[in-house]
C-alpha cells in the first residue's frame, strides 16, 4: 500500500513538473506547478511530516503560486516565445545535472555524519505540529514575537509607501 501511494505521488510529481516546462500557456504551467506542490505535500504526509506538508501548501501553493498567477494575469502573457531559444543553456545545465546525479549514484557508499538531533528530536510522541507549536510558544516565544513585530512593520510600511494623499506635497 505504502509503495503504491509513493509511486502515485512520485509519478504525478514528475508528470506535473514536466508539464510546467512543456506547456506553452503560462497559466497552464502555473496550474501544473500547483498540482505538483500538492503532491509534494502528499509525499510529506506519507513521511509523517504533517507540519511540513501544511507549510508546503500554505506557503508555496497559497502564497508563492498566487503571486505567479497575479503577475501572469496582470501582464496578460498568453504565450511567451522568448524562452524558446535556450537550447544550448538547457543542454549545458542538463549535462551538469546528469553528471552530478551519476557522481552521487557512484559515491553512494560515502556516509555523511548526521548531527545529534538534540532533545527536541525525541519528543515525537505528540506529533510534530504539536511539538513545533509547543516550542514556538515556550522556548522560542521571544523570536516568535519579534517575527510578529516584523510583519507589523512591513504592513505599515506598505501603507505608508503606497497610500495616496498622506503627504501634502503630492
Amino acid at each position, binding site marked *: 500500500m505504502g509503495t503504491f501511494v509513493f509511486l502515485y505521488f512520485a509519478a504525478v510529481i514528475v508528470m506535473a513538473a514536466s508539464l510546467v516546462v512543456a506547456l506553452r500557456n503560462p497559466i497552464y504551467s502555473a496550474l501544473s506547478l500547483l498540482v505538483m506542490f500538492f503532491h509534494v505535500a502528499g509525499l510529506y504526509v506519507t513521511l509523517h511530516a504533517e507540519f511540513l506538508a501544511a507549510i508546503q501548501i500554505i506557503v508555496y501553493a497559497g502564497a508563492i503560486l498566487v503571486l505567479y498567477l497575479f503577475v501572469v494575469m496582470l501582464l496578460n502573457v498568453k504565450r511567451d516565445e522568448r524562452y524558446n531559444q535556450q537550447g544550448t543553456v538547457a543542454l549545458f545545465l542538463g549535462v551538469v545535472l546528469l553528471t552530478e546525479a551519476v557522481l552521487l549514484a557512484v559515491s553512494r557508499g560515502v556516509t555523511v555524519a548526521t548531527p545529534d538531533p*538534540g532533545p527536541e528530536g525525541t519528543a515525537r510522541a505528540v506529533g510534530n505540529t504539536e511539538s513545533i507549536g509547543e516550542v514556538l510558544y515556550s522556548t*522560542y516565544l*521571544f523570536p516568535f514575537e519579534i517575527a510578529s513585530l*516584523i510583519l507589523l512593520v512591513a504592513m*505599515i510600511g506598505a501603507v505608508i509607501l503606497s497610500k495616496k494623499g498622506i*503627504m*501634502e506635497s503630492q
Partner: protein
Amino acid sequence: MMIPLADLVTILPELIVVSVACLLLVLDPITPSNKKDLLAWMSVATLGICFIMTAGSMGDRVFAFSDLVVVDGYASFWKLLLYVVSGMTILLSIGYLKEERIDLAEFYGFVLLSLTGMMIMVSGADLLVIYLGIELMSISLYIMAGFKRFEARSIESSAKYFILGAFSSGLLLYGISLIFGAAGSTRLVEIAAAVEARGLDDSLILIALMLVIVGFGFKVAAVPFHMWTPDVYQGAPTSVTAFMAVASKAASFGAFLRVMLEGFGGMKPNWNGLILGVCILTLILGNLVAIVQTNVKRMLAYSSIAHAGYALIGLVVAGWVGTGVSAKGVSSMMLYLAVYSFMTLGAFSIVAILRRGGNEGEDLDDFTGLAKRHKGAAFLMLLFMVSLAGIPPTAGFIGKFYLFMAAVNAGLTWLAVVGLIFAAVSAFYYLRVVMVMYMREPSPDQENETRLALSPTATVVLALAAAGVVLFGLYPWPLVSLTATASLP
C-alpha cells in the same frame, strides 16, 4: 503559559520602545497637525527614560527567555550609544522633515521600531534572535529610505536597499541554517561548544562561518559587499542616511563582534585572515573612491565605508591569538564607533540643513565660500571634517589612536601603518571640503540660492555632535574606561 516577570523586566527598555512606537502610530492620525512635534518630543523623552534605565542596570550579565537574550555590559554600551544616536536623528528630523514636506509622525515610529531591532541584535545570544533583530532594523530602514516617495532617487534608494538587503539576509540565514545543521542549535554558547569540539574539521561550519561573515559584511558595508552603500545613502532623506550610517552600522558591528567572538571564538585562526583581507580592501577602496566624489553625501557614504575598514581593525585584533589582545581590540572598536557616530551625525546634519532652493545643498559646489556666508555652520563642518580625518585634538584622533595602539600591541604594527597611510589619504578629501568652504569666494548667484534651514532642534543636534567631538577629543577617559569595562572578554 506564563512569561516569567524577571524576563520581562530584563527587556523592559525594548518593551517601552516598542510600546511607544505603536502608540505613536495610533496617535498620529488623531493629533492636530500643529501639535505633531509633541509626538517627536514624546519619542525623545522615551529614549531618555530608556537611557537612564540601561545606564542604571549596566554591568550585570542577565540571561532571559530561555537564554536567547543576554543583557550584559557590552549590550548596554551599544544600547546607550543607539539611544543617543536615535534621539539625535529624531531631533534633526523635526525640522528636516518639514523642510522636505514629509513630516509624518510615522517616521518617528519607524525610528523607534528600527531601534528595537538594533537593541535585539546587540543583546541576542542566539543567531535566530540576532537575525530577526537585523530584519526588524532593516525593514524599518527600507521604508524610511523611501520616505520621499515622490522623488525617484529616494524610491531607487529604498528599492536597491531592499533587494540587496534581502539578498544578504538570505546569505546570512543560509549560514545560520548550516550552523544549525552542524551544531544542532542556534545558541551562541552551543555553537561555541560545537566549534570547540570539531570546528576545524567540519567543512559545514567553515562554509557557515563564511556565509555569516558575508551577511554581516553587507550590513556593515565592508568591501566587497559595499555596492549598495553610495546609492542608498545618497538617495535616502539625509536624516535617514545619518541614522543608517551611524546606528545601523554600530548595531551591526555590535552583533557581528558578539557572533564572531562568542560563537566562533574557538576558530579565530580560521577567520581573522578573512577579516584582515576584508579590512584592508575596505580601507583601500573606501578611501580611494571617496577622493573622486563631488557630491558631499556620496563622499560621506564612501567615508563611512572607509570607517568600517578602520573599525574592522578592531575585529582583526580581537581575533588575533594572544593574551589580553582580544579585549583591547573589542574596546578600541567600541570607542571608535562611538566617536564615529558623533562626527558622522554632525557632518550629515550640516548637509541636511544646507538648502539650495527646494533641495538639499549636497554638492561640493554648494559649500563654496560657506565660511563667508554662514560662519558657524562652516566652522562646525570644519570641526567634523578634521575629526573624520583623525587630526588631534578631536575625538577622531582618539578613536584612531586607540585602534592603532591595539593593533601595535597585538604585534600588527604593519596594519597600524596601513591604517595611518589611509588616514593621511582621507585627509585629502575631508580637507577639500574645508578648502572649498574657506578658500573660495562664493559666486554671486549662489549667495541667493543656498541658505541654512536651521531649526532649534537641529541646533541642539549640532551642539551635541560638536560637544562629543571636542570633549572626547580633549578628555576621552570616561569613554575609554566605559569601553574597557563593557568589552567582551
